[in-house]
């Protein structure tokens, strides 16, 4: 990781306990990265299209492995928690 990134992280999240960061600051950092994230979203969407993952309605299982993995409660879906 670059030195700038290291400094930034240590500024907003002290080692070793990172749990005290409030939700607002996390959301604010995501908002602050909006422009860079937009480019990443576009690339990810193009990549999904090339992987034929955009055809979510197609449940034949030929290509859409990702959809299967992330919608079943296994170790693939690590967000199996209530909101």
């Amino acid at each position, binding site marked *: *990781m670059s030195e700038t990134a290291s400094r930034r992280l240590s500024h907003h999240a002290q*080692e070793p306990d990172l*749990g005290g960061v409030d*939700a607002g600051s*996390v959301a604010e950092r995501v908002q602050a990265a*909006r422009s860079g994230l937009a480019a*990443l979203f576009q690339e990810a969407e193009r990549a999904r299209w090339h992987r034929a993952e955009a055809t979510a309605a197609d449940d034949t299982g030929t290509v859409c492995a990702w959809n299967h993995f992330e919608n079943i409660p296994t170790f*693939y879906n690590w967000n199996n928690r209530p*909101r």
Partner: protein
Amino acid sequence: MQTNATLIDDAWAEFFATHNMRVSISVDGPRAHNAARVARCGSPSYDRVVRGVEALRRNGVRFSALCVVSRPAPGLAAELYEYFLDLGCDVLGINIEEKEGVNTRDNDHRVARVCGFWAELVAAWRRDPRIHLREIEWALRYAAAVLDGTADEVLPRHIDPTPTVGYDGSVVLLSPELAGFSDPRYGDFSSGNVLRTPLPDILSRALDTPWVPEFLAGVESCRTSCGYFGFCGGAHAANRYFEQGRFDGTVTNHCRNSKILLLEGVLDHVRDGESPTVSPRTRA
């Protein structure tokens, strides 16, 4: 099916194809990173893993992969991603090694190392995003939801009990990793036995298992104290127990390694203005 692939031959691969089974391989990258994957006799299993993967490829069986990273270090993420591109998997999940069950190896890594690992992985993936990378997809999904104002809708509304049925019929809920272990305070962690009680009845009485309400209290503590709850949903039961000895703690090393620093690594990558460049593979 999740497998280390060591027993896969052409007959098995044909069986998987015939029955349209989804196969995922456990392999930790190139040979040098697979020291922890050994046969019962202690000999390295890597060559057998490769032979199993070759059988899948020979028979046209598409597969996913799960990779455990023991010690995040600079350069490792890019090396691993290149490896899995060559391996030919469609989907990849990266697990930072967890202190769990019989594995008591320390997982308290430096923040910069772990954050840098994830940031480097994003950069590697952007150069050639052929693989569906589970962690990146999840991080982007959450970030997009934050920007759309729908972050509260990312996590499922209800916790899934995820029952694990043991060889003897015993049922352990929420964390399969607890199956087979016992504790003076919590017993064997089981919530019943399907040889004596129908599974729906066991699930309906989940809260009678003493550690389950303690875990749910822990989830609520995460919700009220951790800024990353919307992304993570609370520390997993097994990570709480094996790291902290109880279920109502909050931030675990696993939370830091695989949730908090994943999200921060993606954000660091983006803020550093990194963009996809020509892949070293392409240049070569």
